[in-house]
């Protein structure tokens, strides 16, 4: 089954026939985790770095923010049998609009916040495609953990 991750949304699965896809990441990040032994995979599509801008939103939908969404993603994967030491982490997105003054550099801040959280938790970030001004769509096959990255206007590559 194809599981679609919307904006500020998350899907985790261990169904061998499942694939997880999230479309058109701009400044948002698609954080992809996979345990190759348990064959559990998940994608979080978060919009903003920090939940303190709206704690009530974070309570209603933790997937909107990096600091509430990333822990939720790992917890769900653990529930399905994933083990921290085996999980590989890849990230896609974090692009941004041309913004010389850097006032609305949400892509950059999304990337920084993710690196900070992963580092604090002793998790290595694997191969990632982040930054720039492009839109990206990412698909993960649960059976293999393979990730296809589509960059708008530039076709599909393997991550």
């Amino acid at each position, binding site marked *: 089954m194809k599981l*679609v991750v*919307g*904006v*500020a949304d998350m899907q985790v699965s261990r169904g061998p026939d499942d694939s997880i896809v999230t*479309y*058109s*990441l*701009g*400044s*948002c990040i698609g954080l992809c985790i996979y345990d190759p032994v348990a064959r559990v995979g998940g994608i979080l599509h978060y*919009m*903003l770095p920090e939940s303190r*801008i*709206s704690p009530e*939103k974070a309570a209603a*939908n933790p997937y*909107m923010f990096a600091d509430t969404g990333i822990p939720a993603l790992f917890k769900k994967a653990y529930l399905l049998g994933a083990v921290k030491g085996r999980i590989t982490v890849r990230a896609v*997105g974090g*692009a*941004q*609009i*041309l*913004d010389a*003054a850097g*006032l*609305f550099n*949400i*892509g950059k801040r999304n990337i920084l916040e993710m690196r900070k959280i992963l580092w604090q938790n002793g998790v290595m970030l694997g191969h990632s495609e982040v930054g*720039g*001004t*492009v*839109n990206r769509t990412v698909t993960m096959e649960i059976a293999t953990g393979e990730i296809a990255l589509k960059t*708008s*206007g*530039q076709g599909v590559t393997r991550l």
Partner: protein
Amino acid sequence: MKRTREILEKVDALPPFPAVIHKALALLQDPLVSAERIVESVRFDQAITANVLKLCNSALLGGMQRISSLKDALVRIGNKPLIRVILSVGGSDVLQKEVPGYDLERGALWRHSALCALLCESLCDVVGYGKKDKAFTAGLLHDVGKVVLSEFVGREYGKIRDAAIAGNITFLDAESGILGMNHAEAGARLGEKWNFDAELVNAIRHHHDPAKGDPSALLFLVHLSDVLCLTSGIGGGADGLRYNVDHELLKGHGIGSKEFELGMIRLADVERDFRGIVAMHG
């Protein structure tokens, strides 16, 4: 080689704006006219009827009781919202198409347009703009020029992208440089051809460079909503996020970095309601 003339020919060759939309737009200008007239004009159109019902029965409008006719829809949701629904459904004739030049699949431009429209409407309160229906319409139509430019952008995409990156300029300016016209201008020309009013045409023409347009709350709304949609990746295509944001204008309206993030949250709410209703049915 510049394509200005070919693009203008294409603008001329495009079918007239769907008659339904034109009527809806006219009705929006006149608060006393009821929606019954417009229902009358679309009730024989299967596609429009089906889509209106689908939309009216959606979570977006919080329905408990199913709606099964355009008349029901009118009673349940009232004149103005129904006109809006018809607008967006009818507009999808033009906007729903695949736009390959921008690497937009069928429905993607429409999704961007519809969400931008809903966001424009939602942000009216913030800006103190009273004409919500007009804000919706402007959001819905701001990128209609992409339909015209698609085949030209498709042919010269590599050149446009290279020019944008090499010159560190926006995709919009690269379109102008390579093709002789950008999608905002093409959209404005279409709007003129379709007899949209000056405020609407101005908002379409300058949605990426509002400082060059006539100052207007509507233009600001469309610029802000479009930037929020682009940042959030809503219906993003091959042009990516290579557009400017007008800081001065945003600052003048009290939009700083915090307010911008709150705008993104509001967009997420709008998107959440929209998801699974219209976006995924295509």
